[in-house]
């Protein structure tokens, strides 16, 4: 299936992948990111239960320095 992560289209070979796995596969620490799927904020507790669907658009966001 094809999904979009942070604006970039990607092909995912796994049949089933949870949001939690997606974040872990990217080497990101679960505690420091916020995730939106199709513009909906997904609370961290739900990540293991959310299975990615074809054409999902995912944003993985974190805090950075700023004024």
């Amino acid at each position, binding site marked *: 299936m094809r999904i979009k992560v942070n604006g970039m289209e990607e092909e995912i070979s796994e049949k089933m992948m949870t949001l939690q796995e997606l974040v872990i596969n990217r080497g990101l620490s679960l505690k420091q990111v916020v995730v939106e799927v199709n513009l909906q904020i997904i609370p961290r507790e739900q990540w293991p239960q959310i299975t990615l669907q074809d054409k999902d658009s995912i944003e993985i*966001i*974190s805090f950075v*320095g*700023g004024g």
Partner: protein
Amino acid sequence: MKEDSLEIGGVKINCRLFVGTGKFSSNTMMRDVLLAAKADVTTVALRRVDSGAKADNILDYIPSGCKVMINTSGARTADEAVRIARLARAAGAGNWIKIEVIADNRYLLPDNLETLKATETLVQEGFVVFPYMSPDLAVARRLAECGAAAVMPLGAPIGSNRGLKTKELVAIMIKEIRAPIIVDAGLGKPSDACECMEMGCAAVLVNTAIAVSRNPIDYARAFSQAVQAGRLAYLSGLAESVDEARASSPLTGFLRDGD
């Protein structure tokens, strides 16, 4: 000096120098600067993360007790600013939001109309909202009326270090608006910050000038002292300025008298 703290959203703010966290050479340097300035309020931004990004969370470097305001930088419309604010809150970053809606890439000047729209929405949603704006009395009044915690006019374009170029307009806002006025952006020197405080600004927000200094820690201290000096002068009442000299020693009893 008797206690003189600013209270916003139920939080007591003793240090009227707000310090942004952008452009520092490291998170450790950023933390040392916040500590040196004794900052009570700081700002961070939200961005997309690259895979394999550093496991460092900037929030872990912010001294405890320092309130974090999330800025909506990167937003070009009210809707985008609202989206960023909601994401920040979902991430556990609290509900203090600096609204920054910018549709101009060259001068990074804020879009006041979109800023007003975002302020209205976010106040309704229970955020403590700090709109960054181009100084304009009518817009400032509307922002305050719809519940902005403070109004943050720019002194000069972001990161320009040019000082308080908007002085006349900011002065009018201070006179006319009851919400705290916090000058944000463009302050380059401690004397710029002092000037703002002498006029009666409630606080100033500084980032670039400190972060790019050769010695950010001492520069932050200098800013902090300037802010305190300006505040103290404002509370004391500024001395009247006149065109002609007024002697400071008595005009009688000169040695030549009677010669």
